[in-house]
């Protein structure tokens, strides 16, 4: 048992929790706005299929939201249980940001969700639309606060250290710290892309099952066009975010690019196996000078290498690979969304082949998003707050056995819930009349849905 390092276990536990958690807010942030869009289209046009789209997707929203809430509660406890040194050192910065998230976002979205889900018929249509808007606003406000804190951990600003504790000198600088605008935009667009591919993928799945009503075609179109519009913007924003990283966290950038030694005219490494021991990439495949060009806009610009940072650099291989997975998925998204948008131009029919590709990419947003987060979070190591506090300094003294026990408990739970979630999303898509018939939390509707299942299955 004592061969287990509690620090490593605590990190794995935290990484597992935060990875599981981020999957769900990513969907609920943009799906909330998509629902508002469906609802307002219905109110504006009076066309029933927009309400059917709303009624189908609100079920997925509710499920996603619940998973986000419960995993978020776990997070709020683990800040303290796993990293007590974090609050002790930078609590004066992190505390108010977290408090504002709870006060301005959590209560709003949780309370309005009840009205949004169950209140139709009890409140006026206008109040119901307002509740939908407030839920979407709440999820986005939550992203604002938590990304302000996360960005501050990467590019801390607006504070001074007194007796080893951070004290705020300017809240504007704390919140709007150098990486915040880039990270927030990058994350919100990532959420938009995740939901676009989810909408498109599930709609394509229904289309393939010959469930081709106006509602399915509408959500398919919304998904494909939103993805096609968002992905080029995301590529530009991602590039700007990368330049911001080059400026503030050069060690992370060197790991992303796999550049070991400072050089002028650095190559863009497409493939390679980073080797910490020899400080080089094995089997490297690279395009000469390209990295210098897109990072410094000069073919001979100088890029700092990993060796420049002594021991204070992140583990190279995970950052290097996660970055390639993210970029690869992004490029795939570009190809798929544009070819679909082209195919569907002027109201033409979808092809089964393209629909299958969309189904395969239903959760591609998650892959790009999680690998992107790994790039930025692992890339910050060994720091917890860049240049201020290392993760090791913030660790707790909880015994390894306790962490191992709870970690295995969480892992079993998360894997089960993740599988259940994906299965249920596709299961809901298989019940063809679901959108037309409200889902009851009481027997009448349930019998309805079981018979539908029988008919469909």
């Amino acid at each position: 048992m004592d061969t287990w390092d509690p620090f490593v276990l605590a990190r794995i536990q935290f990484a597992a929790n935060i990875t599981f958690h981020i999957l769900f807010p990513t969907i609920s942030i943009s799906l909330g706005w998509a629902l508002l869009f469906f609802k307002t289209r219905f109110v504006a046009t009076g066309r029933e299929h927009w309400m059917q789209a709303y009624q189908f997707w609100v079920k997925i929203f509710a499920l996603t939201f619940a998973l986000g809430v419960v995993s978020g509660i776990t997070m709020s406890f683990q800040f303290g249980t796993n990293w007590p040194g974090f609050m002790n050192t930078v609590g004066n910065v992190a505390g108010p940001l977290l408090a504002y998230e709870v006060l301005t976002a959590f209560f709003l979205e949780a309370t309005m969700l009840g009205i949004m889900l169950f209140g139709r018929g009890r409140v006026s249509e206008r109040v119901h639309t307002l509740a939908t808007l407030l839920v979407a606003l709440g999820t986005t406000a939550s992203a604002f606060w938590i990304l302000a804190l996360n960005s501050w951990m990467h590019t801390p600003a607006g504070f001074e250290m007194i007796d080893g504790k951070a004290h705020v000198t300017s809240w504007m600088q704390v919140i709007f710290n150098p990486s915040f605008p880039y990270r927030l935009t990058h994350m919100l667009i990532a959420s938009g892309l995740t939901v676009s591919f989810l909408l498109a993928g599930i709609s394509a799945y229904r289309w393939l099952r010959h469930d081709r009503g106006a509602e399915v075609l509408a959500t398919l179109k919304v998904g494909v066009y939103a993805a096609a519009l968002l992905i080029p913007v995301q590529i530009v924003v991602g590039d700007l975010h990368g330049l911001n990283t080059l400026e503030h966290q050069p060690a992370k950038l060197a790991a992303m690019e796999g550049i070991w030694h400072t050089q002028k005219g650095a190559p863009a490494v497409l493939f390679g196996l980073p080797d910490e021991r020899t400080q080089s990439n094995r089997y490297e495949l690279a395009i000469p000078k390209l990295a210098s060009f897109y990072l410094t806009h000069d073919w001979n610009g100088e890029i700092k290498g990993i060796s420049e940072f002594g021991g204070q650099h992140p583990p190279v291989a995970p950052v290097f690979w996660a970055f390639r997975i993210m970029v690869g998925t992004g490029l795939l998204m570009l190809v798929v969304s544009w070819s679909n948008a082209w195919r569907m131009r002027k109201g033409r029919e979808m092809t089964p082949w393209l629909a299958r590709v969309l189904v395969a990419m239903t959760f591609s947003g998650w892959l790009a998003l999680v690998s992107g987060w790994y790039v930025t979070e692992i890339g910050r190591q060994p720091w917890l707050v860049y240049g201020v506090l290392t993760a090791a300094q913030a660790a707790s003294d909880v015994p390894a056995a306790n962490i191992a026990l709870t970690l295995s408990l969480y892992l079993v739970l998360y894997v089960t819930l993740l599988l259940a979630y994906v299965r249920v999303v596709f299961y809901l898509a298989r019940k063809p009349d679901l959108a037309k018939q409200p889902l009851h939390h009481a027997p009448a509707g349930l019998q309805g849905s079981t018979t539908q299942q029988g008919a469909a299955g």
Partner: protein
Amino acid sequence: MMDLIPDLSQPAGWLPLAFAGVMALSMLAYVILDGYDLGVGVLLRHADDGEQKDTMIASIGPFWDANETWLVLGVGVLLVAFPMAHGVILGYLYLPVALMLVALTLRGVAFDFRVKAQASHKHLWDRAFQLGSALAGWSQGYMLGALITGFQDGIGNRLFCALIGLCLLAAYRLLGASWLIMKTDGRLQRKAVGWAWSSLWLTALGIAAISIVTPWVSSRIFDKWFAFPNLVLLLPIPLVTVALFVLIARSLRRLPTRLEQGNEYGVAVPFAGTIGIMLLAFYGLAYSLFPWLVIDRITLWQAASSPQALMVIFYGVVLVLPVIIAYTVFAYRVFWGKSTALAY
């Protein structure tokens, strides 16, 4: 005790006190509000059929999520306003906290999965709902026991914590049953009267156990309660508590015949009475513990963050909390009355 309390006219004095108040009230709101949710979850296994289960869950469906947020606020305030105590308390409670989190996760996701997964899986998610509710309630009671005994180790303490776990679960069950008496009708409503009745005694035992044990944990607490004239001034607390128990018991005895005749008079009495008991228990507990966050070890001022950081949050609390309370009241009004089948 006066030497423990700094000058309250200074921000470093009154701000931590204000936040201790916000934290305590959030926890109280959580225990009452999510208490009835968890109580209904525990009672699920006594339902006659799936229809009753659906009605029971429909009665808490629109509320549970916001109810649970009070826990996030309470723990959030502990984390951001009293970081030093947060480390000590959650370090000691590491395992019960983990158990509670897993349990709350199960309960929370079961709300959705039970109606969305394949019909053949529904009973599994109902089980998860019950198990999650029961374990969450028990582990919270365990933590309450630990708070009262000052987070000390030892088998006796742990057993006491485990007992308080059962008693808090009974209190939640009482709250849940009284909630169902108000929010449902027919057979389920009459069954709920029986459930409330069977929860009453363990709830009373829990409050008695806490009242007896707390003064013996610390001589300071003993003196606070039993020195003259405090004793006389505090006597109304246990007396009113006993009176409320009698009131609830009487109401539960009369309700079945009244409900039989379709008379709804007094259906809210058990719920209101239980909340009254919880308020008094809470007041007694706060009186015992003040000004300690960890009995005889850490006061709330010793554990507090810097006044500057607290001030920033204080503005937020003063501005936003009334708004939160206003829209919470609005949501309860929207779903006022007997719960109907929920559909969306």
